[in-house]
């Protein structure tokens, strides 16, 4: 059991988390946040292993990981 939480209003849509996720479950949303960026979001949370790679590469500390 694992999950990630994104503080979406802090996300700058840079995409770094999307390319490091080994499960390939992160993608940028079509909508935009208050800063005008497409925030990252997880498609299938049940596949998350809580590996923390997405959180470690996020330059804006958007992601909190539970395991």
């Amino acid at each position: 059991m694992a999950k990630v939480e994104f503080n979406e209003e802090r996300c700058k849509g840079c995409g770094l988390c999307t390319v490091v996720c080994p499960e390939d479950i992160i993608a940028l949303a079509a909508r935009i946040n208050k800063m005008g960026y497409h925030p990252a979001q997880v498609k299938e949370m049940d596949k998350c292993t809580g590996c923390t790679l997405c959180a470690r590469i996020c330059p804006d500390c958007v992601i909190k990981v539970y395991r």
Partner: protein
Amino acid sequence: MKVVFERPQALSDVTTHYCPGCTHGIIHRLVAETIDELGILERTIGVASVGCSVLAYDYLECDWQQAAHGRAPAVATGIKRALPDSIVFTYQGDGDLASIGTAEIIHAANRGEAITVIYVNNTNYGMTGGQMAPTTLVGQVTTTSPRGRDTKEAGYPLRMAEMLATLKGVNYLARVAVNSPANIMKAKRAIKQAFTVQVEDGGFALVEVLSTCPTNWRLDPVEALKWLDDNMIPYYPLAEFKVSGEVK
């Protein structure tokens, strides 16, 4: 489920002004994690430099002093000598440390000042619009080298870590990168070591961190990680150059 990763306490809970995907933010977080893990927040004083990271004092919860361009190691020397129990670090870009501040960094290192230096090399002057820096790679296009860095005019990129490793005053010296999770974890170990040296009164410690500047490199943030791997690491090899005062 337990929380296994969250914002370190020493990292302010604010939105930074950094461009999307700029890895300055990762380096800030690694310094904050180190401050938390060593339990030194109350006695840590950062010296901010001039460059995109000039506002670092808004992002880390320790005390700060802002220095004139390139002078952070001199300011840090003064603070550390006046307050020897404090943990003093500078956070400097390559324009700051390797160009206008070359004299200050060399002499602080040579004197073996008991400070920690976080040196962020992104191969250009980010804040002012991507001009050529002493670290700009041969052939690299910048706003002031539109046909690429020409060694006949501008010489070769400065390898500060290798140069400083020749100085006896240096206790710890490493070059790391923050372009992949594996490299980020190694960067964290080096930064923690560079602060630990100071906590244990070991002397001067410096970590050169290869960092991206997607905006001035004119690259997508993901492409910038790869550009760093393909272009910077071959010229700026990742290594520990000095550990406990011994050349590796």
